């Protein structure tokens, strides 16, 4: 199985002085770097710019941006400057790839607000990596799949979880859904979906042809995908290429 990349492939930072220290660090970064049209000098988060800042920082791209905008519109009265600050802090922890800070900040800061499928979608992988709480994470991805049915990522993640649980038919079903939904320009996710689907197809019924086709598709989408290259080599040199 492919390991997580980008936001979810993060390393555990040293605890240092713990949560208050992380928050101070995050706030310093936010103060220095929050720059947008509404806030050209990187100044404070205000009642007139919190929505814009949250969208610019957390979701610069579609379709996440629209999903977050819908969430903000639906819960506007319960959100505000304080929520945006927590979101920006979370984004800082994503940027520095600190699993521990992400998980702890999410638990402490976001329980006061309505559940957001998009935020859960990004945080769940870190919870899995940090604590291995498979069942909690599965529920978060199920919520995301139900609330963001056009997103490929929740289905990919559910496929990955199903594989970990040894449910290969379930994993294949989820990867099929993810493959049907993934955008052509989402190189990273697309490549991982096809690579992992190939792995599951082979694990499920030793379907070499289908597995090979999926690995090749993963490499077509991302030619420098090291794991897929390795799998292709192993696959051609011997009968099996599962990681054992």
């Amino acid at each position, binding site marked *: 199985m492919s390991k997580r990349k980008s936001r979810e492939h993060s390393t*555990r930072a040293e605890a240092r002085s713990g949560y208050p220290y992380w928050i101070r660090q995050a706030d310093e970064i936010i103060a220095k770097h929050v720059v947008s049209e509404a806030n050209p000098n990187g100044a404070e988060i205000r009642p007139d710019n919190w929505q814009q800042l949250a969208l610019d920082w957390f979701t610069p791209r579609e379709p996440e941006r629209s999903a977050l905008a819908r969430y903000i519109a639906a819960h506007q009265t319960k959100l505000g400057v304080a929520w945006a600050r927590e979101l920006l802090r979370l984004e800082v922890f994503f940027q520095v790839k600190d*699993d*521990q800070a992400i998980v702890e900040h999410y638990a402490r800061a976001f329980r006061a607000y309505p559940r957001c499928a998009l935020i859960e979608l990004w945080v769940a992988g870190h919870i*899995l990596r940090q*604590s291995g709480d*498979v069942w909690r994470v599965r529920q978060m991805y199920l919520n995301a799949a139900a609330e963001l049915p056009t997103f490929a990522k929740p289905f990919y993640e559910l496929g990955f979880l199903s594989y970990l649980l*040894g449910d290969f038919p379930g994993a294949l079903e989820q990867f099929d859904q993810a493959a049907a939904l993934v955008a052509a320009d989402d190189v990273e996710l697309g490549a991982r979906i096809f690579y992992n689907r190939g792995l599951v197809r082979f694990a499920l019924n*030793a379907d070499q042809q289908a597995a090979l086709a999926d690995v090749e598709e993963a490499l077509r989408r991302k030619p420098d995908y090291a794991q897929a290259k390795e799998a292709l080599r192993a696959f051609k040199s011997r009968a099996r290429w599962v990681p*054992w």
Partner: protein
Amino acid sequence: MVDNRPVLQLRTRWFPTRVSGERSMLMEIEFVVNGRHQDKPSMSEIVWATGNIKQALADLPPIVPPRVRRELERLLQPWPPGRYTGAYRRTGGILNLFTPPWGEPQDEVWNKMIAEWRATTFPDDQAKRAALIELEQRWNNTPHPFFAGLTPAQVMVGGGAQEAKLADEFLTQLGKIFGKRAFASEGDMLMQTLMLLRGWQVEPQPNGQTPMQIILAERTELLNRRAHLLAESK
């Protein structure tokens, strides 16, 4: 002279989580109840044939700790006529050893089945009860995604000698591969272990069969043996 009395063995194992380490002991006990020695029937077979748990445990040496004895007694209890909810509390063998504990609240399969049953209109209470019984049997005997494809009945019956050997091989290999590796977190250890397990279970053994196939066949054989002995004892 051959001394074949039981001997104590000390082994160290590497586990990704404390829970899986503790469950491994339960898994060993599940193997023990199905283990045959010198063509003598296993403890399970004695209970299936006679219904007598005391008789099955009669040959246990006194050194066996009370906790293990209690666990053996629990495993040897008759199965319920309805749904095998006891499967939630069994290990499911090596294929399920590392899966974090779960039960009815997480059981999406059963919850979906029961929701559909509740939403169905039946002509009378008898038909409703019959449908529930049929549903419970279907759950018992259908491969469950959260039991790594085993049926709850296959979980209930426990693993046999072949699975015990495979589990030992896997756990030995796991310790060699991960025993000295540094991990970022417990979750990381668990994920890496599960990925290794899922690769291993589909890798053919020298006989051409995968561990998964061997385990499924052995558990099915144990279920058949159970059904045969229970039928004979009636």
